[in-house]
C-alpha cells in the first residue's frame, strides 16, 4: 500500500521537503502523548512490528520500542550477530521468514550499507532503516531536524556544521541530505582522514579547523568518535583528536550566543565533546532523545497509512 512516505523509510536522500516537514509536524503532534499519565494511543493497534537488530544499538532500539508501544503495536525484538557471511545469509533467509509470518513492519539495523533497502525490496512489509552500515540513519537525522527546529523555529537558512567522523557515519549522510532539502547551509569539519572522498560533491563545505567551523555555524552536530578508528590509525591519539577537533567551552566562546550543540550519543566525554559543553547551556542533547521517540512514532504512523493532517485525530482515541 503506497503511503504518504511510500512503502519504506530507507533514507532521507530521496524524500521531498514536503515529506520531511510532514514527519516533523506529525512528530510535534505526537510529542504530547509522552507527557500523558497513560502514554498509549491505539494508532497501531493490531499491527505487528519486528525490531531486527543485526548490530547492537541499545539507544535506537529502545527509542523505537517506546514509539511502537506508545502507539499500541505488538513488537518483537530480534537480535542477530555473527560473521559477515553468516549475516548476509541470515538476511535473505530472514526476509523469507518474515514474509512467511505476515508481519506488518520491520525496523532494521545492519552493519552493511544497503541492507535496509535489500530487505525492503524483498518483503511486502514496511521497512524502516534504523541505520545501515555507513549509509543512512534517517530517524536520527529527523530527530536532529526536529530538535533544531524546536529551538530555532526554522531550518531554512541555518548554518549547520557536522563535526567529526563523517566518513564512517550514517548519521552524517542523512543529516546532510535532510538539512539541504530543507534549505540549510551545511558544512563538515574533522580530520581529512575521516572525510569521504569528494565530500564536497554532497553539497557541503569542508572546514579543516574547528575554530573556523564554530565561528561560522549556528548549529554544531558533533559526531561520536568510534574508538576503533584510533586503533585503525585514522587519528593518532584521542588526546590529539580532542586537542584539534574537540568541542570545548573555550572554543564556543567564539561562537554566536545562541549556537546549538547536538550529539547523537553515546558521547565520549573529553574526546569529541567536553563535559562542560555536553551539560552546558548550548546543549540540546537530551531534547534529541525525547524527540527521537516522537519522530519514530510519526514515521511508523505515516508508513502504516496515516495521513499527516489526521494525526491529531488519530491519537485522540486513547484517552
Amino acid at each position, binding site marked *: 500500500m503506497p503511503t504518504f512516505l511510500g512503502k519504506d523509510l530507507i533514507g532521507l*536522500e530521496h524524500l521531498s521537503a514536503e515529506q520531511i516537514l510532514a514527519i516533523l509536524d506529525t512528530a510535534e503532534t505526537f510529542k504530547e502523548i509522552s507527557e500523558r499519565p497513560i502514554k498509549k494511543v491505539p494508532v497501531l493497534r493490531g499491527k505487528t512490528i519486528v525490531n531486527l537488530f543485526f548490530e547492537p544499538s541499545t539507544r535506537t532500539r529502545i527509542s523505537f520500542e517506546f514509539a511502537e508501544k506508545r502507539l499500541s503495536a505488538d513488537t518483537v525484538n530480534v537480535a542477530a550477530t555473527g560473521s*559477515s*557471511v553468516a*549475516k*548476509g*545469509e541470515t*538476511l*535473505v533467509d530472514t526476509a523469507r521468514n518474515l514474509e512467511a509470518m505476515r508481519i506488518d513492519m520491520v525496523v532494521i539495523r*545492519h*552493519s*552493511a*550499507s*544497503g*541492507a535496509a*533497502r*535489500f530487505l525492503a525490496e524483498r518483503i511486502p512489509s514496511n521497512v524502516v532503516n534504523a541505520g*545501515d*552500515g*555507513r*549509509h*543512512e540513519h534517517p530517524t536520527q537525522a529527523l530527530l536532529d531536524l526536529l530538535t533544531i527546529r524546536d529551538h530555532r523555529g526554522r531550518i531554512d537558512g541555518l548554518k549547520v556544521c557536522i563535526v567529526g567522523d563523517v566518513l564512517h557515519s*550514517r548519521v552524517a*549522510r542523512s543529516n546532510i541530505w535532510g538539512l539541504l532539502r530543507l534549505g540549510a547551509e551545511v558544512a563538515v569539519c574533522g580530520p581529512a582522514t575521516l572525510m*569521504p*572522498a*569528494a*565530500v564536497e*560533491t*554532497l553539497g557541503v563545505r569542508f572546514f579543516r579547523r574547528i575554530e573556523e567551523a564554530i565561528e561560522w555555524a549556528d548549529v554544531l552536530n558533533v559526531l561520536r568518535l568510534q574508538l576503533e578508528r584510533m586503533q585503525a590509525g585514522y587519528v593518532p591519539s584521542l588526546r590529539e583528536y580532542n586537542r584539534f577537533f574537540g568541542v570545548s567551552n573555550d572554543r564556543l566562546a567564539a561562537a554566536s550566543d545562541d549556537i546549538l550543540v547536538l550529539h547523537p550519543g553515546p558521547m565520549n566525554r573529553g574526546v569529541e565533546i567536553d563535559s562542560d559543553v555536553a551539560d552546558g547551556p548550548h546543549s540540546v542533547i537530551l531534547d534529541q532523545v525525547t524527540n527521537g521517540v516522537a519522530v519514530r512514532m510519526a514515521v511508523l504512523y505515516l508508513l502504516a497509512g496515516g495521513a499527516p493532517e489526521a494525526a491529531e485525530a488519530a491519537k485522540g482515541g486513547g484517552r
Partner: protein
Amino acid sequence: MTRPLLIRGGRVIDPSRGFDDAADVLLVGGRVEAVGTALGAPDGADTLDAAGKVVCPGLVDVHVHLREPGGERKETIATGSLAAAAGGFTTICAMPNTDPPIDDPAAVGFVSAAGARAGHARVFPLGAVSVGLAGERLAPVGEMVEAGAVGITDDGHPVYDAGLMRLALEYGRSFDIPVASHCEVRSLSRGGSMNEGVVSTRLGLTGMPNAAEDVMIARDLFLAELTGGRVHIQHVTTKRGTELIRDAKARGVTVTAEGTPHHFSLTDEAVEGYQTHAKVNPPLRSEQDRRAVLAAVADGTLDCIATDHAPHHYDEKEQAFDDAPFGLIGLETALGVSLSRLVVDQHLSLPDLIHRMSTGPARAFGLNAGTLALGAPADVTVIDTAASWTVDARTFRSRSRNTPFDGWTLTGRAVATIVGGAVVHAMDGAE
C-alpha cells in the same frame, strides 16, 4: 577423426596476416588447409555457409576463472569451456586461484586434461606465481610450464612482495612465459567494495582508490624493465594505469595488458541500488577512467580484451553489498558488448577488435592460436556482426548468472565456433 570443413563465402579477417577479404576457409585434419576464393570441397567434407558473416581466427580469452577444483557449484572446467564456445572463444586461459590452487605440475595437468576431455574449447592453465598463492615462495614454475602452463599469476591476490615479483619475472625468462599481474595495493584498497569516488560517498560504501592499482602497475613496469621479463598487466581500469603502460611500451619495456568489456562499458554508477552484479575487483570506475580504458583498447596500449569471467552462485550475490563476493561473468557477453561498444560506436575497426580478442591475446601468452595461417590449428569463429539480440542470463551455458548485462540489447554474436576443425557451437544467426 573430424571430417574436413569448408567455410564458404564469408568475409575472412585474419589480423595476424593483415588479411581482410571475401574468401573460403578449408579446414582439414584439425589444421587450416587453405584460405582463398572458390575453394572446392574435398570428398566427404562438411560445408558451412558464412555468407554475410565474418570468419576469423578463434577468439582467445586469457583471463577466465573456471572454479574447478573446489568451486564446482559456481562453474566447472566443462561448463566454463562450454560457455566460452557459446561466446565465440576457442581458447581460454584458466586462472590458478582455485581451491586447492594450481601451484604444481599435477594440478596444471589436471586442468589441461579436464579441458581436453570436455572438448568445448582449448583450456590452457596458468600456474601460480607462489606456492599456495601465499606470496612467499616461488612455485615450481619450470615444472608447471612443462606440464602445460602458459604463464603464471597469483590473480585474485596481488604479489605484494616486490622481491618475489622480481624473482618471478627473472625466472619466467628462462621459460619465456609472461607473469600476469593483478595490480592492487591492498593496504590502500582493504575493506573497499567499490570504486572510491562520488558514488561510494553517496552510498556509504568503502571505496578503493585508483592509486591502489596505479602504484602497483608502476612497480611492475619498473620490475619488468629491471629484469627484462614479460609482465602482463591484468584488468587495467584506470586512466593513469593506461598512461603508465603506454609510456612503458614507448620505452621498450616488455609489457602486455588487458582491458575488460565491463570496464570499458560500465562505470561505478552501475553499483547504484547496491547492485551486487556490478561488484567486481578491480572495481568499475569513473567515466573518465572508462573512456581511458576504451581509448587504450582502441590504440593497442591494451593488447587484449579479456573477460575476467568470475562465476558466483546466485545465493552468494543475493546478499548485502559488502557481504557479496567480487566478480561477474563475461564469456557469453564479451563479443556482443565489445562489438556494440567499440565497433558499432566507431572507436575501433572490426579487424582491430578481432586482433584484441584473438591475435593480440594469443601473442601475449605465446599461444599457437589467433591466426588462420596455413597449418595453424583449425580454430575459427564465425560472427554475425549485424545480429541484434537481448542478453538473457537464464540461457547461459555457464553455471552462474552473475552478469550486469542481463537484459541488454547487443549487436553481434558468434554464430559458429570451431575448435580443431570441429563445430563446438552453432546457432541460427538469422534471428
